[in-house]
């Protein structure tokens, strides 16, 4: 039996994305930030935690590209190392919430009896502002990178589930799903081979945006001092530490803020590009 029609993917998708200058720039930014985070011990010019009180609050210059903080630590190195935590949190939250959200979305969208309960739970979870729910969950679970990932995954799963459910509702009614049913294909096979394969496009787009939102939320939690352990450098904790020195050493908040903004902007550009490439109808509108 013929498989369901597939959307643009593989080499075709790469070609479509490569045609958009903004997407190429977005991907390049992500590549540079990702590579710097992975290769942090090699790329960073100094130990991010090395104290050098004699050179505290040194402005940006050749010795310290982004300057130093109140303990004389090299901000450039700290921004690179902080990227490891922030990007890991964003990536893991995007992955976990996509897997869980797809499961609940498929269940709600495909099985009519499960639709109402899944939808009501999704509605209820979305009534909590993301930071507030994350704060409460981290308060209950304790502040650590893993718990921030768990908390933010719980926060973003309903958002993915809503997208997955809406897409499944459309696919469920299509002729090839009906044909598969008539041929006696098992429900789970239909879900995996026919439904899931055809809702991948909106899910990839949603995962990209979830990555971006999770990074912003993690930064917010760290800024509030209720996220990861304050001794772990993240872009949010760096801004929190620098807020006392905004007047005298503005560079302490400037560079981590630029890093978050660049990363989130790049993800949004790539997300938009993916949506344009994968769903040309929607791209005309937004």
């Amino acid at each position, binding site marked *: 039996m013929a498989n369901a029609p597939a959307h643009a993917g593989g080499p075709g998708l790469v070609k479509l994305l490569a045609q958009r200058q903004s997407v190429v720039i977005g991907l390049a930014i992500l590549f540079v930030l990702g590579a710097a985070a992975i290769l942090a011990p090699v790329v960073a010019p100094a130990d991010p935690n090395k104290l050098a009180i004699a050179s505290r609050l040194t402005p940006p210059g050749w010795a310290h590209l982004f300057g130093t903080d109140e303990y004389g630590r090299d901000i450039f190195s700290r921004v690179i190392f902080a990227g490891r935590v922030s990007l890991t949190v964003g990536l893991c939250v995007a992955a976990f919430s996509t897997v869980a959200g797809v499961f609940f979305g498929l269940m709600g969208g495909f099985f009519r009896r499960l639709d109402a309960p899944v939808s*009501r*739970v999704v*509605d*209820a*979870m*979305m*009534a*909590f*502002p*993301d*930071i*507030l*729910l994350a*704060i*409460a*969950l*981290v*308060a*209950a*679970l*304790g502040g650590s990178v893993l718990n921030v990932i768990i908390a933010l995954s719980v926060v973003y799963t309903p958002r993915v589930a809503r997208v997955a459910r809406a897409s499944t509702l459309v696919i469920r009614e299509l002729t090839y799903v009906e044909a598969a049913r008539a041929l006696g294909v098992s429900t789970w096979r239909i879900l995996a081979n026919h439904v899931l394969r055809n809702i991948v496009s909106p899910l990839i787009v949603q995962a990209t945006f979830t990555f*971006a939102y999770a990074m*912003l*939320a993690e*930064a*917010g939690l760290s*800024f*509030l*001092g*209720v996220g990861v352990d304050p001794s772990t450098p993240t872009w*949010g904790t760096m*801004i929190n530490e620098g*807020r006392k020195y*905004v*007047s005298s050493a*503005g560079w302490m*908040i400037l560079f981590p*803020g630029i890093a*978050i*903004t660049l990363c*989130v*902007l790049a993800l*949004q*550009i790539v997300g*938009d590009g993916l949506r344009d490439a994968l769903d040309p109808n929607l791209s005309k*509108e*937004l």
Partner: protein
Amino acid sequence: MARYVAKRVLGMIVVMFIVLTTVFIIVRLAPGDPASLMLGPEATPADVVALRARMGLDQPVVVQYFSFLGQIATGNLGQSIFFNQPVTQVIAARAEPTVLLTLFSIVIAVAIALPVGILSAYTRGSLFDQGSLSTAMLAASVPSFWLGLIFQQYLATGAGWFPVSGFGSPSATFFERVHFIILPSIVLGIVNSALIIRFSRAAMLDVLNDDFVRTARAKGMSEWRVVIRHALKSALIPIVTVVGLTFALLISGAIVTERVFNLPGLGSLVVGAVLRRDYPVIQGVLVVIAGLYVLINFLIDMLYLAIDPRVKY
């Protein structure tokens, strides 16, 4: 229509029930005994037992759950351990800065987004359109607390146009307090205008190609009248929806922005409660804010009936 309203009210009750259950579970996820955690290591066993009894923690979980639901139904959100006051009173005392910040931010976000979105759609593909979409994307990428710190430095500390932080003295008049809210509202308004710009542009694009707009133009109506009186009126539903959804984003933004500007609102209350392990307060703030969100979205649904004659249930 009455049937639709009744169905929506029932749906709202079910959602609130799940919200309350979620809050109950979250608060009880915390490892260890909440009473011991709240009282600290120096508390005597007798103190812990007394607090456990006061909080109802000596009861089975099922009893605690139904007693929690019963309390909420009667408007009782429990007693704050730190403030030693009813949570409703603690929340009411801290609500004003958050409410003002949220309202002013929404007004500023809409005041920026609506004209930009309409003009963007009207001049689709122009330099203005591309510029506004790019700016909107940038605004949505900036952490509100970072933008807040920069604005605070340049517009308050530097230029002296706004108070640097706080909410004024307790005897300050309403207008004096509003003065403290304007800068944080501008920050949140800018960050949150991005989503509204994109949706209002999309909604206007949809409508500007409709037959009734073409007919209005053919009748010789002025462009202003066509766009504002006809097109915008029809595009209002998705715009109102997204303004409603922005409420949750604004509350999240308000929680972190309050810290930047030292506003004594619900954000600083909940962060303080987390650090002090004052669980009844965390629970209360979650219930009130999620409840408000559910209520606002219900009211928006009802608003559809009023603003679009095509919507009939």
